[in-house]
């Protein structure tokens, strides 16, 4: 009888550890994923939450006209900035000042 109890206790303990492991594993990784893709002879980005697209930028945000990012690095930089805002529950709006601060090239189509 004692052995049976010990066995059940052991199984229970393992189950609890497994649950905790998976929960912490889930919460430690970001809910958001980013994908940078080529578009219109430049690059855009897509931000998804739990595999559902939330924001899709074929073009650089905030500025007039339809201008894609000139290179993957620029697209990645702004996408990461948007994700960090979303994770911090800040409006994911990109301002023209932020484009300048991050030295985003705005005129490679010309």
């Amino acid at each position, binding site marked *: 009888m004692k052995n049976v109890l010990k066995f059940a206790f052991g199984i229970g303990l393992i189950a609890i550890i497994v649950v905790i492991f998976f929960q912490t594993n889930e919460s430690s990784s970001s809910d958001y994923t980013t994908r940078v893709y080529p578009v219109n002879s430049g690059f855009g980005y897509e931000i998804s939450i739990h595999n559902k697209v939330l924001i899709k930028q074929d073009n650089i945000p905030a500025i007039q006209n339809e201008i894609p990012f000139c290179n993957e690095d620029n697209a990645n930089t702004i996408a990461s900035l948007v994700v960090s805002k979303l994770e911090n529950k800040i409006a994911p*709006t990109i301002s023209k000042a932020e484009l300048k601060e991050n030295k985003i090239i705005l005129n490679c189509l010309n």
Partner: protein
Amino acid sequence: MIKNSTKVLVLCALALSLFNCSSDDDNDRGNWIERSVFDGVPRSNVVGFVIDELGYMGTGYDGDDYLVDFWQYNIAGDYWVQKADFPGTERSSATGFALDGLGYLGTGYDGVDELTDFWSYNPGSNSWTQKADFLGGVRQAAIGFGISGTGYIGTGYDGDNDRKDFYKYDPTSDTWSELVGFGGEKRRFGTTFTIGDKVYIGTGVSNGLYKTDFWEFDPSTEVFTSKLDLDEEDDYSITRSNAVGFTVDGLGYIVSGYNGGVLNSTWEYDPGTDEWEDITGLEGYSRQDALAFSTGTRAFVLLGRSGSLYLDDNYELFPQEDYDDED
């Protein structure tokens, strides 16, 4: 003994059926489904319009700042795209409408002054162009709509008084002219919706009184016709300010707003009978100063505020479906 247990059984059955009845009582018409939002992008008093099945919204107030950012909501894909910033002053309570493939945005309040400037947005080129100032002078909380090649802005608050004047905008010549004939009372934070080739105008507040008059505007004759008052029936509770108005499949809707407190109720207008019906209220918070997007067949109510709590959610209305509390 047998008799007693039978009685108990019957009572139990009765009680159960009563409980069932009350829990099934929620089969009201109209259902709301939550759609894509940004966590933490609460704002109110934004302006929006729909062009080619895409929603556009921007400006507004988040509780700290007046805003200029401008977004496109892809209705088919349920995702957002940040577009060109609105180039005018940051503002809330502006007026906007779509007209012949362009968006128009003007007037409003920057935190200090009411505004009179007026701009167009071209979704094809993602660019803004300043147009002729609104002829009615500075104004916020006005009503605006575009129909049959002409834009209209009227009513609102000029910083001193509530107004009842209307002006029309000709996009071809970029000129404004006064439109006479609105027989309604002065008001701010009224609302409007368009059904077919007619525009409906109502709600709003002035000097603490919620307006009960309701109007139909025919742009082909430029005649305003008085419809039945919004308090015509004893069980109507339509009067309010800071609501949203929109159209789905030939019926008009007025949702949320303020009347002594924030509201979530949804009233449906049938232009054929000039009657209103109360359907399922907006799920989520009761709110004022929200935004509605309508394609004519699909409609969304989003953002707004409940007291000092600014909201960032987005709900689609299915007016002909039954209420489902589990979605």
